[in-house]
């Protein structure tokens, strides 16, 4: 009983609840009693340990919860990453299947947005041609369409970047031309055709200068006097000047020899005309069996064909035949 009383007294002293005379009395006792001092020290140490134990217990709870929280956060973040990866994979697979279904069909008129520019261009040309030649569709399936039949002008037809890309089915005729390497096969589906060289011939050049020179020699003296602004009577020299004005101003170099090299070409778009680079004449749309006569007059070349005369002017690109209309010049040429 005495011990219990002392225990509670020490307890009150250590907790600060002991006050007044009771505290003073206890302090005097504490000063004079070693046993009491030891008891206070021991009780204080035990109380501290009890407090420390409880504190450690609570900290353990906090630590435990803290770890489980971090673990939960970690698991949550891992799940998020896994979900993101899974979603990406599903998206990729879905995109793959969608695109594989939307693969361009060559025979189909449908052009998907994601098709290549090459395919789009091809479809564009095909659709354009389909509109223009709806009534002559059967011709396009057998061979190259003539430019005049598909409603293209010669100028349009010369735009080879657009028109030369023509799809030709594998007919027997096509195979032959493929072997002759006239047709360049870029891939299994796209065929690009070029102009076709049919043959080459050497023509003699009929020079009319000698005949005219002899005729005009005597006129040279009178030319200056006769060729007045008011003169209504034209001389042959005046006629020549007139023709020169209507013709191209480009300088023309006629081959010195009396022969001229002529190549017969078949145009992909059935273009009818010529190219004359100064050394040879490339004729388009002129059959080889036609009778051609090349004439030279005053350093210029003329082509006689089917009782008509055409100018052959030096040029670097395709040029249509231009018929001679001047009657005086025609008379000279016909002579």
């Amino acid at each position, binding site marked *: 009983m005495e011990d219990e009383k002392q*225990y509670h007294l020490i307890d009150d002293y250590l907790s600060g609840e002991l006050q007044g005379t009771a505290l003073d009395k206890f302090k005097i006792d504490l000063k004079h009693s070693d046993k009491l001092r030891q008891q206070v020290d*021991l009780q204080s140490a035990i*109380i501290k340990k*009890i407090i420390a134990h*409880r504190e450690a217990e*609570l900290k353990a709870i*906090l630590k435990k919860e803290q770890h489980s929280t971090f673990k939960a956060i970690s698991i949550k973040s891992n799940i998020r990453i896994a979900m993101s990866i899974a979603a990406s994979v599903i998206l990729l697979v879905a995109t793959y299947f969608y695109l594989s279904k939307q693969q361009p069909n060559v025979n189909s008129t449908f052009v998907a947005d994601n098709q290549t520019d090459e395919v789009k261009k091809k479809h564009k040309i095909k659709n354009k041609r389909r509109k223009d030649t709806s009534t002559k569709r059967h011709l396009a399936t057998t061979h190259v369409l003539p430019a005049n039949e598909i409603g293209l002008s010669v100028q349009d037809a010369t735009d080879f970047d657009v028109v030369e890309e023509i799809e030709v089915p594998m007919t027997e005729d096509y195979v032959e031309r493929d072997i002759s390497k006239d047709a360049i096969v870029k891939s299994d589906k796209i065929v690009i055709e070029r102009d076709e060289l049919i043959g080459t011939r050497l023509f003699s050049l009929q020079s009319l200068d000698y005949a005219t020179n002899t005729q005009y020699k005597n006129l040279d003296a009178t030319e200056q006097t006769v060729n007045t602004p008011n003169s209504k009577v034209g001389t042959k020299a005046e006629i020549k000047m007139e023709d020169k004005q209507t013709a191209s101003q480009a300088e023309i170099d006629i081959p010195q020899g009396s022969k001229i090299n002529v190549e017969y070409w078949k145009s992909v778009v059935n273009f009818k005309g010529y190219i004359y680079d100064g050394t040879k004449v490339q004729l388009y749309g002129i059959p080889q069996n036609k009778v051609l006569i090349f004439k030279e007059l005053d350093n210029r070349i003329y082509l006689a064909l089917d009782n008509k005369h055409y100018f052959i002017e030096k040029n670097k690109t395709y040029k249509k035949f231009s018929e001679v209309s001047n009657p005086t010049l025609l008379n000279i040429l016909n002579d």
Partner: protein
Amino acid sequence: MFGIGSLNDQAILERIKQGDESVLVLVYNKHYSLVKNFILKNSGDHTVVDDIMQDTIIAVWKNANKPAFLLQSKLSTYILAIAKNLWFKELKKRSKFKLVDETNQLNKAIDTQKNNLDDGIIAEMVNEMDETCKKLLSYFYFDGYSTRMIADKLNFANADTVKSKKYQCFKKLQASVLAKYNKADLI
């Protein structure tokens, strides 16, 4: 289980007074960033944040259970104030520690070793106590619960019974500590 977001400061304090340990975790998690930012901005690092935070929450727990405790500000402000005091105390301790010469440090280490031995014996005995005694003494000395509250919590008849039981538990612990201490001293 309630989230702390749904509890106001008074409700949290009430739950602390009721001895609800789960609310400590909620308070800890909610104010962790606040305390961490303060420590990191004031010469601290991540290794001390947890310790300071735990000590802060323990202090809140102990203070909230005192009968005279009255929260006069927001709980977050109060928690940050405790954390600041603890951290500045720790910084002061560290700066003082640097001034101690090697001799003193050696003597202190020897004393600490002796004290740790004694403390270790006592701590071991506390752990070996039966659960009721352990709880009773913890509630009284650490949590500061009144004998009446302890009677309610541990299903004792009344406050006098708690007082009597407390003495018995303490004497039992003291006897075991003394027995162990003498034995260790003899060795």
